[in-house]
């Protein structure tokens, strides 16, 4: 062999060796700038991070997703069809069409993807967290169950919103983590979903902690036992199971009596808004979406700045926060200049700063009291309901111009009174429409008049009769499934009103 040949062979072998080693990386397909599922789900800290991710999805869309925030959808669905807000001149066509009861499946406000995104995060936790037991011996069953309980409760909250907004929706309880998980899912009837939510929440109630033994903001921003019980009470009331609702409320009330510093009403001061909203995580709150300290709640653009889409309804000063004509300084702590400004009609409840970090209040202790009062009223315990209402109004400094005095045997009268009080307490918090609908649909739509009276005042006079006739069809009380979703999933069945 010549020298030359030796050199060539030698060089060839070295080259081959190089090729061989570098091949390791070439053929490795795992991403170098992220973590795969197989590498994740190893320690209990991984589960905690994933759970925190579920909460984060409530206050901001993930990177790369251009969608409205979950809270914007919850605000819009809960208010736009009701009577507390009006369209500003800059409201979108979609906004105006819903307000005028001209709803079609192409309306962009009927997209539900933001909520299903959170549901999928929860499903991912529920599916993969148990595997961590195989790797992390320090993960106790109790800890695992607590995490699972948080995910179950959050998922239930999202489904509860969906069921109240769309009625029958696809009910997915497994995660979508890979292409083969994609499936066409039909709609599940609302009653089936609600039954499952009750079962899930009962499981969660046994698993989640009473407190996280950390800051108060943690106990208010994460799911605790009282949060599960409050949600369950709300679900029961929607399902018209009043005894169960009262039982859950009583659990929360008992906790409040035992721990007044952790959970009770803040009264007797007009600093109420500052404490509950501006500072956040007050002892009144049971569960809030924690925008603080640094995530913009996004409401400045919708409710405050000059291009805002919604303003407070001009009828609020006539029917909800009626001023005391004798003494204008005698004010409800929740009314004018707190939740909204009657002079500019701006909704100020979520703060007027840009950006604003006021938290989204999912449930407060006042919710529990009023849910219980409503259940009691329907169960012919009107006197007890009125007693709760009366002491609650005193705490809130509700003024006599908004007082009513229904007879303790007058179920409808007491329910109307509670409904009116809820409109003051939860003004612009995305609850009004569900409150109206829950009261209207009770006992097979015994009180449809609540919705008909409401809509006769909110739509333009030229469309009033048409809108009222539409509202007589109970299917119209739920939004249509967006046409893009119908197109993508052939198994979805559209609400018959929109066919």
């Amino acid at each position, binding site marked *: 062999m010549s020298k030359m040949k030796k050199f060539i062979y030698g060089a060839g072998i070295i080259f081959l060796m190089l090729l061989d080693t570098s091949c390791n990386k070439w053929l490795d397909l795992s991403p170098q700038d992220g973590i795969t599922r197989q590498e994740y789900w190893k320690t209990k800290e991984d589960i905690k991070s994933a759970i925190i991710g579920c909460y984060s999805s409530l206050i901001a869309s993930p990177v790369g997703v251009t969608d409205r925030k979950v809270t914007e959808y919850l605000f819009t669905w809960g208010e736009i069809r009701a009577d507390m807000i009006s369209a*500003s001149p800059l409201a979108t066509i979609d906004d105006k069409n819903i307000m005028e009861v001209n709803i079609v499946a192409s309306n962009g406000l009927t997209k539900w993807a933001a909520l299903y995104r959170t549901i999928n995060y929860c499903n991912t936790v529920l599916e993969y967290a148990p595997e961590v037991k195989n790797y992390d011996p320090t993960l106790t069953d109790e800890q695992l169950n607590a995490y699972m309980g948080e995910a179950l409760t959050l998922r239930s909250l999202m489904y509860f919103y969906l069921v109240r907004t769309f009625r029958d929706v696809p009910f997915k309880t497994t995660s979508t983590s890979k292409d083969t998980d994609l499936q066409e899912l039909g709609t599940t009837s609302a009653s089936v979903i609600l039954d499952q939510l009750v079962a899930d929440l009962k499981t969660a109630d046994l698993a989640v902690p009473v407190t996280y033994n950390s800051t108060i903001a943690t106990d208010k921003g994460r799911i605790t036992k009282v949060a599960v019980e409050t949600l369950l009470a709300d679900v029961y009331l929607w399902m018209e199971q009043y005894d169960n609702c009262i039982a859950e409320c009583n659990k929360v009330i008992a906790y409040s009596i035992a721990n007044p510093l952790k959970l009770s009403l803040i009264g007797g001061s007009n600093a109420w808004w500052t404490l509950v909203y501006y500072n956040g995580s007050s002892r009144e709150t049971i569960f809030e979406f924690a925008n603080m300290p640094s995530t913009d709640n996004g409401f400045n653009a919708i409710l405050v700045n000059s291009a805002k889409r919604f303003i407070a309804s001009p009828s609020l000063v006539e029917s909800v926060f009626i001023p005391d004509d004798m003494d*204008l300084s005698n004010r409800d702590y929740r009314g004018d200049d707190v939740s909204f400004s*009657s002079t500019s009609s701006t909704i100020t409840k979520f703060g007027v700063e840009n950006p604003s970090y006021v938290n989204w209040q999912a449930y407060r202790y006042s919710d529990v009291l009023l849910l219980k009062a409503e259940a009691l009223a329907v169960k012919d315990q009107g006197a007890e309901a009125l007693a709760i209402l009366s002491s609650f109004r005193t705490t809130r400094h509700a003024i006599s111009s908004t007082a009513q005095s229904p007879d303790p045997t007058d179920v409808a009268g007491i329910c109307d009174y509670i409904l009116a009080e809820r409109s003051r307490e939860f003004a612009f918090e995305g609850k009004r429409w569900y409150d109206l609908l829950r009261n209207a649909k009770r006992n097979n739509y015994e009180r449809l008049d609540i919705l008909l009276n409401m809509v*006769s005042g909110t739509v333009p006079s*030229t469309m009033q009769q048409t809108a009222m006739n539409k509202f*007589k069809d109970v299917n119209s009380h739920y939004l249509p499934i967006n046409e893009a979703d119908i197109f993508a999933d052939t198994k979805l069945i559209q609400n018959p009103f929109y066919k």
Partner: protein
Amino acid sequence: MKKIYRFKPNQGWIFMLILLLFITNSCKKELYTQSTTDDVNIVGYLELYPDQFSLMTEILERSGTSGYLGAYGTYTLFTPDNTAIKAWLVKLNKASVADVPVEDLKNMVKFHLLADTIGTEAFTDGKLPELTLYGQYLVTGATNQNGSSSYLVNKQAKITKPNVRVGNGVMHIIDEVLLPSTKTLAKMIEESSRYTIFTQALKETGFYDSLNVEQSEATDTLKRFQTAIIESDSALNVAGISSYAQLKAKLSKTSSPKNHTDSLWLYVAYHIIPGANYMADITETSALYTLAPREIITSKFVGQMILLNDDDFNGVHEQGVAINRSFSDLTTSNGVIHDSKNLFKIKVRFQVPLFWEITDQPEISSQGSIWRKPTGSTYVLTANGASLVAAYQFERPSAGQTPKYVSTTATNRYFSNSDYLSMSMIAATNTARNVWFEMKTPMLVKGKYKVWACYGQNSNGPILQAVFDKGTSMEQTMPTLLDCRQTLDASGVVSAGAALADADNNMLSQGFKRYMAHANETNVDGIKGSIPQTGTGWNVNPSRLLGTVEILTTDRHWIRFTHVGGNTGQDYTWIDMIHFIPLDKDQNYPRFHKTAAIFQRPNL
């Protein structure tokens, strides 16, 4: 060792063969989409579903309309399905579409077709925004049957599938064929058993003939469509009229009801309005101009009721009459009929002076913490580029220097009820300020009035010109300009002479007056006036006579103030009141006070 490679002959063939393989491979035809869209047009859509629409397709073909409905355009087609058309054929006594004359088919298609795309979002409780090609309006609404709601067209057909978007428009599938009304207003009223008395009144007054003209033959284009709001026999019975003879006896003052000055003629004319005004249209307007010369019907929407002539006049509420919705919106070939629940007729009113507190608007008075509270607060009258007060309009509602309502604590100038309207005006177009603003007066009875503008004097103020009903046929410009810089001194009466007995008359002769009571006046309740009679500050609350206006219809009217000169200071245009005083009435009194107190002319 060098060697040049050459093809051997057989190797060349192999090479060619391989090349050929490539070529044949690449020749495989790929399927490209050659159209930009696979949306179908109206005709294409109907052909896709022959089980539902084969008869409609046949109608379009036989009527010769399928050509243009298959081509580009913007149409709305109300499409009856096969069941609907079969029922229609049975009604016509025809066995098949082929038996129906082509002309009838054409009319049928025309009545279902509009030359615009109208989705259900544009539906109201009244007519669609466009005419059908047939020339009659379609009326929409919604109905609820057995718990399920659907849109209703012409009170005849339900929409079973709304908003089917196709390439050249939109289709609404309906369950009945729509039938145009073939009868005129006159015929419809005559044939109904509800309106026998009114029918006879129509005939006796000659209106029957004018309401019996098909819209296509109408010579006066304003009267192609007309609206009749009429009382049923039972409504007249309630008012004590049980026959035409009684109606005539009660109303007709001359022997001939055809005479245009006869009250019976006027009564019937007062029930007829030019144009097709459906309920939804009536709820949107506040005044309906009738055929009775210069007489209007006011309309008001309260809760779910439409009330006619429900007015506050001279401080007194006059209860209106309600429209009976179930017998209204009745379409005829040349108009629409509504049913009034009670008798209504022209109200004979007499002119009264109107001392208009321009800030007395429901949107402002609902601001409880500010309204007429002498707290020095302001209320901005525009927001988001729109006026917050229905009775105010601004040239530029988005202007940065906003118009305001002010309740004032000022003691150098007093205003009636301690409040006024503060404007920032400029003559040329300027994004920061308004060139003009206008206000809708309360009800003014027709007749002539002297118009007095009461203002707070400011040396930075503008010169304004007042115009009534700008842009309408009743437009009138006031001859005198309102110079907001002028004090009462401009009348020639100065402080030294202001307390003299003839001061008021001297000012009046120059078109000025005091409108605020002065400190030496005491009213019946013992209240003293707010401003000094002479000396500093006596002259800064002037009222200026702008001229005489002739109000032609008893109605609410617009008065516009346009900047024509003077200064352009921000927030320096202060208007307090406007007085409309009939020519023969006292122009000087009553006077006003910083509270609601009123000072009548003292008895001498």
